[in-house]
Every structure is written in structure tokens, then in C-alpha cells.
């Protein structure tokens, strides 16, 4: 009896330790990023760093405004492509899909989530870029190409979270709507969809998080010029690609400025996650 109790205690401790390890990892990353990034930012001047328009490491100019703009443009583009497609798909899966088809579609979407991003990037480079070259001329890379590719990449996140929240809506909503004389379509779009609103929004925000943090695929199709984009087909560099492009050989202040770029990215992600958890809490209360 006693032995069992002590064993139980032991395992409780073990699990507790596991929980702490992941929390400690987050804390360590935070400390590392801020301790390394902030002094460099201060050395270069916060304002000059965040709002500087020139990124020329060899000339000692570290302004990341073009990259911030790039990240926002590409993410916005990904939302424009990915969100409508993802939501329609989720509604179809939750409300209209025949069971047999569902058995094919659902694993396909899950598979989409498991494809490594470098494979997406290669697909973009070999398939989307030549098509864009044919349509718009030019090099076929840039905001539009990156947005389309990212739109694909955020689909699984949006679809699975939205579908789950559509399915979580109590059946009474749907039945009540039918009882009032609404058709199946009306009930789905006007009753179930709004009821799942906060959950769907959370899915979209998670998708945004994925889009803004994506690196490898974007690096291969965005063109990566550190300039302000002036058109949809203009080359663009995002915060993430700025880091991965130059981290390999960077030394000294250049390296620190790349870590500082990571800090900015980190703050972006923190804001997005904060939005997500706030929405989740609100959604939880509503139900």
C-alpha cells in the first residue's frame, strides 16, 4: 500500500517535471532573445532599427521597416487566399459532406498539414513560379506567389480548427433553426456558422501565426530583396527570411541585429497568441 503511494508520488513528480521543462524552454528562449536582442537594438538605436528603411549590413545600416512591411503584406495576402477557401471547406466538411467523401477529404487535409515547409517551397519554386512568370512576366517571385503558397500552407490549420468549432455548436441550434422553417443551407450559414464565430476566428488567428512565422517556403519564392514592395509581383523579404538568409555567416553586430529581428518577430507572435487566448476565453464564456 505504502509502496504504491510512494510510486504514485514519484510519477506525479516526474510529470510535474516534464511540465516544467517545456515551461522552462519558453522562458529560456524569451530570456535569450531579449538579452541578446535588446542591447544590439539599443546600440543601433531603437528608432533607427524599427523604422530604418535601409538594410545593408556591410555598410552598418540595419533598418527592418522593409521586412516588417513585407511580413505584413505576405501574411495579409495569405489570409485573402487561405481564409475564404478554408472556411468554405470547413463548412462543407461539417455540414454538407457525404460520409464517404469525408473519409477521403479529411485525411487529405491532415496530410497537407504534415508536409514539410521546404517541400512546399520547392513546389512553389517549380510549379507556381513558372505559372506566375507566364502570367505576369518578370521573375515570377514576390508577394503574390508567396501569398498563394502561404494560403495553401495555412489551410489545414484554418480548416481543422473551424471544422471542430462548427461541430462543437450544440445540435439544438441547428434543429431549432430547422423547426422554424429554415432550410439546411440557411441553418448552416445563418445559425451554426455565427454560433461558431469565435472558434473560427481563433482558427484564422492561428493561421496568421503560421503564415507570419513561415520561413523556408517563403525564402524560396519571395525573391528576398530588402526593399519596400511597390506592386503585387514585387520581390519582398519578410522578417523570418531575413534571419534565415543571413544567419549562416553573420558575425558581430550583424548577428546581433538578426537576433533583434527575431525579437521583433517574437513580439508579433506574442501579440497574435494573446489575441488567440483572449478570443478563446471569450468563446468559452459564451458557450
Amino acid at each position, binding site marked *: 500500500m505504502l509502496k504504491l503511494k510512494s510510486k504514485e508520488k514519484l510519477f506525479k513528480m516526474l510529470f510535474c517535471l516534464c511540465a516544467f521543462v517545456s515551461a522552462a524552454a519558453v522562458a529560456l528562449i524569451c530570456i535569450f532573445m531579449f538579452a541578446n536582442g535588446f542591447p544590439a537594438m539599443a546600440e543601433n538605436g531603437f528608432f533607427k532599427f524599427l523604422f530604418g528603411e535601409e538594410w545593408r549590413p556591410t555598410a552598418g545600416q540595419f533598418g527592418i521597416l522593409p521586412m516588417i512591411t513585407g511580413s505584413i503584406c505576405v501574411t495579409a495576402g495569405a489570409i485573402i487566399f487561405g481564409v475564404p477557401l478554408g472556411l468554405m471547406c470547413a463548412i462543407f466538411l461539417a455540414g454538407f459532406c457525404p460520409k464517404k467523401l469525408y473519409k*477521403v477529404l479529411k485525411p487529405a487535409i491532415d496530410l497537407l498539414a504534415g508536409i514539410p515547409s521546404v517541400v512546399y517551397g520547392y513546389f512553389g519554386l517549380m510549379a507556381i513560379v513558372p505559372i506566375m512568370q507566364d502570367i505576369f512576366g518578370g521573375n515570377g517571385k514576390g508577394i503574390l506567389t508567396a501569398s498563394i503558397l502561404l494560403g495553401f500552407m495555412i489551410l489545414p490549420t484554418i480548416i481543422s480548427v473551424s471544422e471542430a468549432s462548427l461541430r462543437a455548436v450544440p445540435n439544438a441550434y441547428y434543429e431549432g433553426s430547422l423547426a422554424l422553417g429554415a432550410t439546411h443551407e440557411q441553418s448552416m450559414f445563418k445559425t451554426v456558422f455565427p454560433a461558431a464565430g469565435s472558434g473560427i476566428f481563433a482558427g484564422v488567428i492561428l493561421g496568421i501565426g503560421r503564415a507570419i512565422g513561415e520561413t523556408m517556403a517563403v525564402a524560396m519564392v519571395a*525573391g528576398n530583396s530588402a526593399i519596400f514592395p511597390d506592386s503585387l509581383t514585387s520581390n519582398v523579404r519578410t522578417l523570418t527570411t531575413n534571419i534565415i538568409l543571413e544567419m*549562416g555567416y553573420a558575425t558581430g553586430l550583424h548577428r546581433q541585429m538578426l537576433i533583434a529581428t527575431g525579437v521583433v518577430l517574437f513580439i508579433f507572435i506574442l501579440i497574435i497568441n494573446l489575441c488567440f487566448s483572449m478570443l478563446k476565453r471569450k468563446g468559452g464564456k459564451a458557450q
Partner: protein
Amino acid sequence: MRKAAKLVSYLCVAALAVCGLGACNNDANNDKDDDTKNPSTSTPGGDDTTGMSGEIYVISREESSGTRSAFTEILEIIDADGNDATVATAEVTNSTGVMLTTVAGNDKAIGYVSLGSLNDTVKALSVDGVEATADNIKNNTYPVSRPFVMAYKEAEASDLAKDFIAYVMSSQGQAIIAEESYIAADESAEEYTASGLSGSLSIEGSTSVGPVMEILAEAYMELNPDANITVTQDGSGTGITAAIDGGCDIAISSRALKEEEAAELTPVTIATDGIAVIVNTENSIDSLTSEQIKEIFLGNITEWDELN
């Protein structure tokens, strides 16, 4: 039963995906074929120099790449302060592979790769009328090349330092250099036999020479287990200064020593690195002057018409 159904559906999806990808690739290839057929039929008899027009797509490497710094240094793609001034609108790729794929897929692109990585999916331009070949780099006629140099103080060099340089210049050392796709300085070098020397040796300098030097050092330490070699990569200039001041035993440099540096140190050229300027295989231009390449990468020449 259900598991089997799931498995079958997974397989179906995989098969569909493969078909889709295949179709995409075919489409892309077909389109390219069409493009290439049209100009050749429209200009029968084909005058080579009138072929290229339209905007030049300049493709560069990332700011901290060794190839980029070598390229901009050799062709003087720099501003008044001596800093890299590659045109900001240039597309940036972060690897040789993506550079090659990009140039191979865009008939108006121009880029550069280390000569060792060159393959026939792209066309290497002659620079100042000299073809980019290993032979032309060896006889110093191809302009876009740079020597890899080890430099040391003759009077103060330890036996270990001399022995390591002897190893680098031996058939084994030169084979490692060739394997890293640089052009070995001495192809008929003699074989090195382990000396069994001990002690420590510090090497400092170029980030371009550094990676191959690390491999050489490791191979040397395997032959001579008592020796301990450290390689610090912090730039050619820093390494040479350190060697002159006695801060390190051997400097590694990706440029020839300047006169005042050569007065203090003994240089040994261990290899040569060549950079090929590459264009699409459809490009009708075969040769550019180094001045033209410089103006293209500075952004002063933006149209292919200007080069005809």
C-alpha cells in the same frame, strides 16, 4: 476493416498528389518549350546579338555570403565608402542550388555561382572575352577569381606550422581542396607522411577559406593525433593583422596579400576560387566585359538591349 479503408484513402490521396505534381511539371515544361520555339521560328537565320531584350533580372546571394563578398570585391560592386552596393531590387537567394534553379527557369536572369558548383542547366558567360574554365583560372586570365592564401612569419614559424602547410600542399591536402570544389594549386603534389608532431597551432582569418581549412585541420589531426589546431573565422584582414602581431600562427586569406603585408609574412597560395557569371541557356549573350557586369549589379544597366 475501417483501418483498411483509411489506408486505401491515404494511398488514393498520395496518388492524386503525385499525378497533380506531375501534371504541373509537364505544363511548365511545355510552356517553356513553346517559348523557345517561337523566337527561333520568327528569326530564321538567327542573328545572335539581336536576341535579348527586356528587363535584366539580377540575382544575388545573401549579404553575408562568401561568394557574394568575393564577387562584389573582385568586380568592385561597391559604393564610395567601399561597401557592397549590389542593387537593392536584386533577388536574393540563400543557396547555390536555388540560384541555379532560378537562373535556369528565367531567361532574363543573371547571377553568379562558385565555379565548382556550375552545371549545364545554366550558361556561364565569358568575362572580358575569357571563358570561365579551371584552366583559365590557373593561368590567371579569367578575371573573376581569387586566391586562397595561407600566410605566416617565416622566422617564427614552428615546425608544426610548417608541417601543416606541407600537408595542405601535399596530394592529400590538395585532394580535399579539390573535393570542396576549389581549384587546387598543385596537382602533381607529393604525398604527405605523418610527422607525429605535437603542440597547438592557431589559424585565423577568412570566412571563405575557413570551412575548407577546418576540414584540412581535422584530417591533419587524424594523422597527427597529438597536434591541436584551432581555426577562427573572422575575415581575411583580421587574420592577417593577427599573424603580423603574433596573435595567431597562420593567417588565412581569400585575397592576395598587399605589399606591406607581404613584407611581414610569407604567403602560400593553396587554392584558387573562381566565380562564374551565369545566365539562362536561352540567353543569346555569350560574353560580357567586367565593366558591364559591374554596371548590371550596380543597377545602372537594367535592360538587355543596352548590352547588344
